């Protein structure tokens, strides 16, 4: 049920639906929801233009809590429904909310194909490295050896790296953010919203109940400055409590080096999110804990024609000389007459 028509400018509350939020207290999803509501309220797109589409899982309840159009679909299939919706309506701002199980396991196929087609939608993959809604089985992003209800002897599976999948699928916008840094998350959501083409955002999210502190070794208060590196376009990859470390290339591999603000950057790796070639973005995805600091920010943001735009263009081209009439469709090229 929705209220009377809301007018611009919006407040965060305008984006809050009447439905009671039912995530566990302390769940990282609360922060993602609030950041989304706050971020969208700053834009001047009418609220009826937003559609949230999700699959199945804890994070997939998201659409119910947004006071916009929403579609809580079936496990893994949200990108397909969002694709069809986008193909018939170029004006909507479409957001797919998925998780590590929904997006990378049961829905892996759709995720890949949606990204390679460059369908103009925004995909948020909320990664908590566990199955929450089914109460604690390992997920495709769970680390090898992880002990869960379905892996009492430890998993024997190599985890999948969400951003590698995005790069391999030639997604045109790829980013990573985290639930505990709403400012950064809001910046990334805004960038994703403004990107024309598919936007893929991985959000590190904490599942308090089944996988608490999964990301703390990287994002924890004590360690984050040394183990996270925030990407800034055109800037070296600087990190460390004193901003005294950066990355340089040693052959094909990254290497930590000392850095002084304002110093010489010529040997350092300089972030270039507009690199058309996927090599560099892939390289960044391979910077993993504990060997290297983990990058957050926009890995890649390039321009390519979108699927929906090309689909419309083909129709426009076909109709240059006018739309087809029913008679020529039904009659076809060959007819014959019987009788008078």
């Amino acid at each position, binding site marked *: *049920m*929705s209220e*009377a*028509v809301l007018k611009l400018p919006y407040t965060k509350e305008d984006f809050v639906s009447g*439905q009671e939020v039912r995530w566990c207290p302390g769940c990282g999803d609360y922060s993602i929801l609030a950041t989304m509501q706050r971020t969208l309220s700053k834009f001047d797109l*009418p*609220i*009826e*233009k937003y559609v949230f*589409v999700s699959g*199945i899982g804890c994070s997939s309840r998201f*659409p*119910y809590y*947004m*006071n*916009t*159009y*929403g*579609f*809580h*679909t*079936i496990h893994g*299939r949200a*990108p*397909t*429904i*969002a*694709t*069809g*919706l*986008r*193909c*018939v*309506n170029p*004006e*909507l701002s479409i957001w797919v909310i998925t998780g590590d199980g929904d997006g990378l396991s049961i829905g892996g*196929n*759709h995720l*890949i*194909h949606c990204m390679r087609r460059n369908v103009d939608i925004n995909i948020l993959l909320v990664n908590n490295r566990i199955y929450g809604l089914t109460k604690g089985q390992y997920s495709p992003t769970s680390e090898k050896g992880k002990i869960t209800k379905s892996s009492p002897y430890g998993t024997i599976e190599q985890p999948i790296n969400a951003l590698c999948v995005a790069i391999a699928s030639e997604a045109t916008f790829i980013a990573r953010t985290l639930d505990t840094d709403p400012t950064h998350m809001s910046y990334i959501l805004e960038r994703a919203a403004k990107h024309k083409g598919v936007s893929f955002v991985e959000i590190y999210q904490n599942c308090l109940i089944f996988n608490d502190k999964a990301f703390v070794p990287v994002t924890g208060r004590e360690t984050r400055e040394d183990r996270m590196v925030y990407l800034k376009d055109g800037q070296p990859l600087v990190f460390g409590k004193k901003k005294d470390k950066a990355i340089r290339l040693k052959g094909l591999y990254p290497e930590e080096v000392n850095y002084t603000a304002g110093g010489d950057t010529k040997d350092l790796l300089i972030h270039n999110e507009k690199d058309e070639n996927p090599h560099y973005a892939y390289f960044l995805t391979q910077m993993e804990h504990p060997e290297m600091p983990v990058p957050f920010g926009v890995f890649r943001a390039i321009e390519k024609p979108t699927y929906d735009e090309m*689909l419309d263009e083909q*129709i426009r*081209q*076909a*109709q240059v000389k006018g*739309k*087809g009439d*029913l*008679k020529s*469709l*039904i*009659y*076809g090229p*060959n*007819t*014959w*007459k*019987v*009788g*008078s």
Partner: protein
Amino acid sequence: MVAVKSKTSANTITIRFAGDSGDGMQLTGDQFTDTTAVMGNDFATFPDYPAEIRAPQGTLPGVSSFQIQFSDNIIFTPGDQADVLVAMNPAALKVNLKTVKKGGLIIVNENSFGEDHLKKAAWKTNPLADNTLKDFQVLKVALTDLTRNALKDHPLKGQEVDRCKNFFALGMMFWMYDRRFEHTVAWIEKRFAKRPEMVAANIATLKAGFNFADITETLQTQIHVPKAQLEPGVYRKITGNEATAIGFVTAAQLAGKTLFYGSYPITPASSILHELAKHKVYGVKTFQAEDEIAAIGAAIGASFGGQLGITGTSGPGVCLKSEALNLAVMTELPLVVIDVQRAGPSTGMPTKTEQGDLLQVMYGRNGDSPVAVIAPKTPSDCFQMALEAVRLAVKYMTPVIFLSEGYLAEAAEPWKLPEIEKLPKIEIRHPKEEKDPFLPYSRNPETLARPWAVPGTPGLGHRIGGLSKADLTGNVSYDPDNNQKMILLRREKVAKIANDIPDLTVEGPGSGKLLVLGWGGTFGAIYQAISDLTQEGVKVSHAHLNYLNPFPKNLKNVLSRFEKILVPELNMGQLIMILRDHFPGVNFLGLNKMQGHPFSVFEMKNKIRELL
């Protein structure tokens, strides 16, 4: 000197062209059909080919056949058995021998009956030299040599020359059945416009075949099949899949909607995708999805977006789509799922026909999940039923299953074209901005349909999904009474469609000993059988169900007027199971065939006689 040949006439002829998958038999059949159409006969065709694209040359699995029956009468089937079989090689002869009438004519390419070809086709001895063909007339023609000879002054080489031989055979058949070859000549000129040497060679071969038949002493009589008394009007040749595609484009235009077709290639539904992909000038959007699930998902997305979402597949694809189909049931969005059935279970026989998916589309989902199910009965009827599928889907906000069959999909027949101006508009009303809180699960009192509110409409923001829905608001609800109420409401909504569909009509006596109750593509064989038997003075009636869920309201009454109801189906008895559930006490009897082939008129007549 060549003797003057005689000309006789016949009412109905069945011809079967058979050869290797690469021999161009489908093309040959199509050309014969096109000319037959222009010459005013009624006809029905039956392409019959393997799933393998090019099975090893000369082998039994590689045989591709095309059958056409044409007549000066109105006919409904491609003919039980052929008067003439054209067999391009020993394998084609072996596979198709049982399809020829006793005393029928078999034309073979004798050049292809060498040792190795006989061996590949598993003939122990040469059937042209022993008693195998004693029940038939056999005309041995050196098709390969004659084609090479006809093209000896042409620039084409080797294989390209030999590939023309189907036109030699076609030319012979044109002479035998007194057809003009101009239509095919025009087709060749268009088809090979960029290769003048191919145009010249194919036309030369066609004419050489025609002249050979005219000159050879073994063919003494030309047979003429007069024009049929078809209803006056403009006609075109149409296959079921073409009619389906054109029907849905037309429906979208009549509804003022964009047709969005999500599909994943699958035999025998793919040609619908191919056809629709051509129609961008009508604003049709086709989406070749990564899999069957994505295909229906995208179609649901398009429907949610306020346009016409359709997905098409065959039985195995329906299995994959069932969860998403249930989402459309729960969210009460309009959607059409085309199922062009093929022989199952599992991969089954992909190019062969069956009616094995009725129970799957009716019941193959978790929970109580009613959908509307309709089935076309002839290739051209696919057009009309496509309009119906869309009309019902958008009016009742429900998925509709369009249950076609491989046999209908590929069979061709003449179609008397509808008057475009008389096609009824499909009315759709989307709710607009309103002052009161919007209730996405409120209902139209007549149809029980919920409002189709389109994203982008101010003030109507709402959330839908697969979780149980609260009445009116559509909010997530685990309330036990509400859940039961919603399940019953969805059932009632689909049941109400019965008020909106035509009554079942009975052909023949309105009551009596036996009613044959068919559905789908069995129509032709049933109709022909009953019409033949009626002429013989047998009293039997026919009714055909286009609507399988819900049934027409008068079905119970119709059934009550007959002692026995024969239900022929190309499955183990799926409709009969549903009928027995709905109408206990009625004497239903089955005729069931699971061979990948449609019923013959012969077996239909036998069964009817047995029951009388």
